């Protein structure tokens, strides 16, 4: 555990990213918009009544929280992994007394802070205009914290091992695009899981994508009962463990190949 190195990396990334905050705010804006679209669509669909037990206001609340959590769990660095392998930056990192995952992690941490500098005020402003309904309890908030940490870890490591396929395949970031589409469909973006048609709903509850994005929001907004929460948490934990195992497995094999091929 190289703590000093880690902090230095985080500080470095922060300093350079905050200089270009216009660019990063623009990125955050772009990620926020699709979720806003569906906030409005479902609000219009619910009208003055309810859809699957959700009112206009609670749907708005769900989506506003989702905007923030999606920003927190989105592993932006996975997109650069492929490039790092292709253009040889990995070689430089392998020489350093720090596992290359530190670079990714420090970018994640520093990056999140920059993105949230934009997302939090804008979401707050939207909340004032849209007036969502949120019933938050301490219990939900307490469970929300570990579940969002797991959500980030799952999304990060799942994307990371997919991106590491760049050791073998040149265009592995298409898999990341596919992951984003699946999160959109089955991860609570297009619609809250409860609003999906039955077949897709079951699929969503089993696959990891819901646990990368929507699950913490469902916990926080009180959509789930105690049993559902516990089952959800265990599935989330299971997928996260699998993701980390896959990451280690692909990494060791990938590095072996990389060093054999000559980088």
């Amino acid at each position: 555990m190289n703590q000093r190195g880690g902090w230095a990396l985080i500080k470095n990334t922060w300093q350079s990213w905050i200089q270009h905050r216009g660019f990063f705010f623009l990125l955050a804006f772009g990620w926020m918009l699709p979720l806003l679209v569906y906030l409005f669509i479902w609000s219009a669909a619910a009208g003055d009544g309810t859809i699957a037990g959700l009112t206009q206001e609670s749907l708005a609340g769900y989506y506003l929280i989702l905007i923030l959590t999606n920003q927190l769990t989105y592993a932006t660095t996975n997109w650069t992994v492929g490039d790092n392998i292709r253009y040889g930056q990995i070689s430089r990192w392998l020489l350093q007394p720090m596992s290359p995952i530190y670079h990714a992690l420090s970018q994640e941490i520093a990056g999140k802070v920059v993105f949230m500098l934009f997302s939090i005020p804008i979401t707050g402003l939207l909340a004032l205009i849209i007036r969502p309904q949120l019933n938050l309890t301490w219990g939900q908030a307490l469970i929300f914290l570990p579940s969002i940490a797991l959500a980030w870890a799952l999304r990060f490591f799942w994307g990371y091992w997919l991106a590491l396929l760049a050791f073998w395949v040149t265009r592995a970031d298409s898999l990341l695009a596919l992951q984003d589409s699946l999160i959109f469909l089955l991860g609570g973006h297009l619609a809250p899981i409860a609003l999906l048609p039955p077949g897709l709903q079951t699929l969503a509850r089993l696959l990891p994508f819901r646990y990368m994005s929507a699950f913490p929001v469902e916990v926080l907004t009180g959509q789930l009962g105690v049993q559902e929460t516990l089952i959800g948490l265990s599935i989330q934990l299971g997928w996260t463990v699998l993701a980390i195992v896959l990451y280690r497995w692909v990494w060791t094999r990938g590095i072996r190949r990389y060093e054999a091929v000559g980088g």
Partner: protein
Amino acid sequence: MHHLKLIGAFFKVSSQAELAYRVNFFIRLLHSGLNLLTGVLSLVVIFNQVEVIKGWDMPAALALLGVYLLLGALRGLFIGPSLESVAGMDGEIWTGTYDFTLLRPVDQQFLISFRHWRIFALVDLSMAIGVLVYALVLLGAQLTIGMVLSFLLTLLAGVTLLYAALLAFSALVFWNPGFLFTWVINDLFQLARYPVGLYPGWLRLVLTWIIPVGLMTTIPAQALVGTLSPWMMLLTLAFTLAAFLGATWLFRHGLKKYTSASS
């Protein structure tokens, strides 16, 4: 005539460059297919929950999706690539190579609007037309000549509006070369995926008369479905003309600023 010949020359050269690039055709096809699939699936999921939202049913929404995809394909065909080469990331204004373009004995607006073509967008174009045709089948529409004409007219208006919006945002780069203004309008265009009537009142006004992404897709879709009032159509056409003139003025003003004509 000379300008038509020039467009032909630009198209030819762009195609050669694109084919030389050798990005995997199948990867691109995958992305386009994914885009189409998520678009259609989104509508399926939404209309699985409700039959009609504010007067729009599934076939009508599908027609609008077709228009959205069509406009997106046209943007991807030449409007986007041409303007991005000047105002986008690593664009000519940013890298300082705009001088060469400025030296050419051709009208600047024409040059930067028609210069680069991406022929792969023709695939997206055909997908969009497919969606439109399917929507028409679902509508079982009694298509009158009047409806077809008004559709084509408002579609042309939609393309012109999109062009005007992109041109205006691109022109802003003359004042602030570091910021990716084109990304802003591209992000906002996502709001055009659904009928503008679905958005809350205040947003509807903004998206109709200020940043008219609402007009771009909703009006042609209404024409096709038969719910467009002649008054609204005339208003849209007039607004489109004004937007085009305004964007042209802004571009020329920005060009003068760039060459320091107005100190």
